[in-house]
């Protein structure tokens, strides 16, 4: 090689090494502050503000650290104060009065007032926010600086969970000028009143960074820095120490416990269910649907499909672990003989193990697909199991496996007999019964809603579930609605899978499962209360008034520079070789 070439190569190498150094703002690796990392597979759940976070559980969870609601939930069954210290329902006026915490501040140190709450309602009415529907709210009224009254347009029983505990309050001084919330991604779009302030979100890497808000009205959070990372295998990330909190696979629970992690066994707020086309014969007959329920062996599903990590479902849709579970939901114990007896009573004849009527065999098609929960497909053997069970009682089964979206479309178009489907939120407010049973006019059909509007009795009860404001009377209506639902079986709930999360106890945070799920029933045990300093106060520790540490802007980089450097090097070598 000639001298000139060596010089060129050296210059190129020097340039690639120096460029990133010049671009860098600081070179201190800041690991001294205590931090906590949460890993998941999807990573990107949208910018953490109400309008940009994706309208799914994990998106809401990433937003809830920054934006507070009026009330909140924890591991007890009561609503607890958050921005509102006290509240009351005025039944004669059909209005709620909330007394706000006087210490509440926005992250830019402006005080949070009743004006902000009224503004949020007006703003969300003008720019609908998919997660919170405000049709039942008429208007907000400022009573004094820290008291707000919310007038309802019609009685709405799920108000506390659906609005009070779900509607993130927006700062008026920032949002009043925002015309299109979907395009608003300035730094100020992430100023909330929650325990953590926004530092960075990288769409590309699926990572989030938050910093504790020193002036938080419930005390400074115990973890200074909260980070969300994206990973291909969350459990491995936990075991390798790259994350402190992840979901884990059910088969590894024991091993993870042995490794010193704390495992949270999730509540059963998600159900696998059998959708039924109750418009066609013989599925339009209640007796036949009850026969199906007797023919289905829920335990076999739990054993074979979930390998024991789950439990049989209640037939009344509401989760058997919910505070709203009716004490006397009709049950359908596994009993093939009873099923055969019921089908025979409908005029069918059992010949060579298969039912026939008027010379036609009793054949049903079952649609199955990989149902995704939280964005991840869950392979299972449900289709084969149900086929075997139904064939045992003389029903011929045509098992058809299709793409989830196609199954959904067929179900929406009533182009099916039976279909396996599933959904969550059965542990939260019982309005789910209404949502997953009735087809409301003006709303597009949902593939896991039974659209069973033909029972007058059930319609009446579900109306009460939504609008009865007397807690005792509402509870009665909820119980009775479940009983009627289980008797008429618009769809058959089969089982609840058990989900596990694990965390590293060394971080000092004790994560817990929120009763009924966070907000509208999110079954993710990442409740922000676990991180709030008031738990330190509970133990008698004094909360020192720590002013928030100035946050450096640590954004995730792009590989462009090193990449260009590598390319430059390659080109240089090639140039030299060609010259030779």
């Amino acid at each position: 090689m000639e001298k000139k070439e060596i010089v060129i190569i050296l210059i190129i190498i020097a340039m690639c090494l120096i460029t990133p150094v010049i671009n860098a703002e600081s070179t201190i690796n800041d690991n001294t502050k205590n931090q906590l990392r949460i890993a998941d597979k999807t990573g990107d759940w949208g910018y953490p503000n109400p309008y940009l976070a994706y309208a799914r559980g994990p998106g809401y969870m990433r937003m809830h650290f920054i934006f507070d609601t009026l009330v909140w939930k924890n591991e007890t069954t009561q609503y607890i104060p958050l921005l509102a210290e006290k509240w009351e329902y005025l039944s004669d006026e059909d209005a709620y009065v909330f007394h706000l915490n006087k210490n509440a501040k926005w992250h830019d140190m402006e005080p949070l007032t009743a004006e902000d709450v009224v503004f949020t309602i007006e703003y969300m009415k003008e720019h609908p926010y998919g997660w919170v529907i405000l049709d039942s709210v008429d208007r907000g009224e400022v009573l004094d600086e820290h008291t707000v009254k919310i007038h309802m347009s019609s009685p709405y029983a799920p108000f506390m969970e659906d609005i009070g505990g779900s509607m993130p309050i927006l700062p008026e001084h920032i949002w009043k000028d925002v015309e299109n919330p979907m395009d608003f991604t300035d730094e100020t779009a992430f100023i909330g009143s929650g325990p953590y302030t926004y530092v960075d979100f990288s769409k590309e890497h699926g990572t989030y960074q938050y910093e504790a808000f020193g002036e938080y009205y419930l005390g400074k959070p115990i973890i200074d820095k909260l980070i969300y990372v994206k990973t291909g295998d969350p459990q491995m990330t936990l075991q390798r120490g790259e994350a402190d909190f992840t979901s884990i696979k059910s088969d590894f629970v024991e091993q993870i416990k042995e490794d010193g992690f704390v495992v949270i066994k999730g509540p059963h707020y998600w159900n696998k269910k059998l959708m039924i086309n109750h418009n066609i014969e013989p599925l339009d007959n209640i007796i036949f649907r009850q026969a199906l329920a007797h023919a289905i062996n829920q335990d076999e599903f739990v054993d074979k499909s979930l390998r024991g990590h789950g439990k049989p479902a209640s037939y009344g849709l509401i989760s058997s672990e919910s505070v709203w579970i009716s004490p006397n939901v009709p049950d359908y114990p596994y009993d093939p003989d009873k099923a055969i007896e019921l089908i025979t009573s409908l005029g069918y004849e059992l010949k060579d193990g298969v039912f026939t009527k008027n010379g036609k065999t009793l054949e049903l098609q079952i649609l199955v697909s990989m149902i995704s929960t939280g964005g991840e497909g869950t392979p299972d053997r449900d289709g084969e199991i149900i086929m075997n069970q139904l064939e045992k009682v003389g029903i011929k089964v045509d098992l058809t496996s299709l793409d989830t979206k196609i199954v959904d479309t067929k179900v929406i178009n009533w182009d099916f007999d039976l279909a396996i489907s599933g959904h969550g939120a059965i542990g939260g407010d019982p309005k789910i019964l209404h949502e997953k049973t009735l087809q409301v006019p003006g709303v597009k059909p949902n593939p896991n809603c039974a659209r069973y509007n033909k029972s007058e009795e059930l319609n009446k009860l579900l109306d009460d579930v939504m609008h009865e404001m007397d807690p005792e009377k509402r509870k009665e209506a909820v119980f009775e609605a479940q009983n009627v639902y289980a008797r008429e079986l618009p769809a058959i709930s089969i089982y609840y899978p058990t989900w596990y999360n694990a965390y590293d106890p060394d971080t000092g945070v004790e994560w817990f499962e929120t009763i009924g799920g966070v907000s509208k029933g999110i079954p993710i045990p990442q409740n922000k209360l676990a991180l709030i300093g008031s738990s330190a106060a509970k133990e008698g520790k004094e909360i020192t008034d720590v002013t928030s540490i100035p946050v450096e802007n640590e954004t995730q980089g792009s590989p462009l520079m090193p990449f260009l450097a590598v390319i430059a090097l390659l080109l240089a070598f090639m140039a030299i070789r060609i010259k030779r």
Partner: protein
Amino acid sequence: MKSKKKTKVITVYLVTIFILLLLTFFLPRLLPGDVIIAMYGGQEMLITDELYNELIALHGLDKPLIEQFLIYITQLAHGDLGYSYIYHASITDLILDALPWTLLLVVGSLTLSSIAGIILGVESSWRRGGRFDRSLLMFMLLIDGIPALALGIMSLTIFSLYCGWFPTSGAVTPYSNAVGITYIIDILWHLTLPLAALTLSQIPGDYLMIRNSMLLIIREPFVLTAYAKGIKERRIKYLHAARNAILPFFTRIGIRVVCIITGVLFIETIFAYPGLGLLTYEAISNRDLPLMQGIFTISVLLVLVINILIDISYKKIDPRVEYA
């Protein structure tokens, strides 16, 4: 004569591009099911008729198909690939963010596997029938049978979980504040496993190709002549024989790029590597029509550009070829 040929080549490419654009536009639209319900159905929101019509208008689905296609082409000409509904972001930006990472993997593994494939192939053919050749051939056939996906999972389990030498996922350590050389080292450290898995899956193909064409070349008289001229063996091996054996290998690069891009999809998903493959996976599983369309268009253009480059450089490598 020459310019006529050139015009013909350009016309062929333009027609190909047009047909491919037509396909990338219409194929996602042929998927069964209501597009809006498919895209938004999984989110926890009530789709009222009002919202439905708004969404239809937002995605421009209320216009006739031909008009939609024309709008798409016009936007494309301006470098605008549309708006992704799952990411709430411009698709051009999303792809530009992801592309460097994928190129890092693709170019890296293409380079490494070519070098390794050529060297191993040449050495192996030179000692054909010997112990080295036979054992290497066996080994390569074995590796060839393992898909990139399995190689990825194996290396992840062994080197990351049990040995703890490499990180499990991502392209950089999130919020490590690393800069300068530490930052480059961090990127390389994260790159190692995915790159190794992808490269390893590519080597056998290259190796077999080079070995086979070398076996034919070695018998050619010019190799014997070179010996007679007293040229050093290493020079004959690489400058005389390998240079001729490399031609079919070079033709294959276009096809290999497509294979690598497919492989990248799996590798990036396993290692949560923020490139185009992962973006494709998210787009398909969420039925993000505009994003799928954008990625397909870019991938198609990428493959075509590579093909053009190969066509052009073919003449340089083999002066005997006048028109490829």
